[in-house]
């Protein structure tokens, strides 16, 4: 293993930070969702890196990465359905403008 563990963690942290920036700064709800995907991926890289370097004989790291991917799929499906539904009613997906609880 040529690359020490902290480098993996740094890359994952950078990806997480980028995703967080996307979530915080995007006006478009789909853009926010893209940021969330990046953050989930960063978490996944961490899980796999920990598995590889700390407990390579156990399965936990990979199994949890699979769970994270499954959750990401569910989240994307539900989130995009909400966005499309909101777009149909309000003709906008800008999060600042979606400020009414009930329409």
């Amino acid at each position, binding site marked *: *293993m040529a690359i020490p563990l902290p480098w993996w963690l740094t*890359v994952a*942290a950078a990806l997480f930070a980028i995703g967080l920036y996307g979530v915080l700064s995007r006006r478009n709800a*789909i853009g926010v969702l893209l940021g969330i995907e990046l953050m989930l991926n960063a978490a996944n890289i961490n899980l*796999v890196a920990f598995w590889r370097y700390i407990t*390579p004989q156990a399965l936990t790291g990979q199994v949890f990465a699979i769970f994270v991917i499954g959750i990401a799929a569910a989240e994307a499906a539900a989130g995009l359905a909400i966005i499309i539904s909101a*777009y149909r009613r309000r003709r906008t997906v800008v999060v600042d403008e979606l400020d009414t609880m009930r329409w």
Partner: protein
Amino acid sequence: MIIEHAVQIFAFVILTLMTLGGGLAVVTSRNLFHAALFLILSLAGAMGYYVLLDAGFLAVVQLLIYIGAISILILFSIMLTRGLMMPGQVQRNEQWWIAALVVFLTFVVLVVTMWQTVWPIADTEALRAPNIAIAQLGAALVGPYAIPFEVISALLLVALVGAIVLAREEGNQPARADAETGE
């Protein structure tokens, strides 16, 4: 051994450029469709990481679910809501600089913590042979991890039904109600 290490480091650098560069483009690109395509690039980089970390099965799953399903879904919904993605639209809100500041601080804190912690790295003997067969992974999913696995299945089912209910067009029900349940 030296060559192997060099190749690994080279691959790591390339993949990092892909992942982080793609990621940066995702959050800064003005054109949302481009942002989603850069997301695919970034996810492909992460997939390469998994290969480098000897998690081949995860890499395939990443390709299948992230690139094959989630990205397609996102591209699709961008196209469905495309009134808002014409070029020239401002894509970031007024708080972007606060966000950048907070994010930078988070990153610094994370990195400092990471480099100061002493990680309980497994001994070199264990590091060498992590060859996990898919069959083992499958057995684990229905063995010790059966309950989380079933919860994920239920979650996916709920998300599936929920997405259909939410995205379903209300009001003008077509004459054949079943014609539109295709997706």
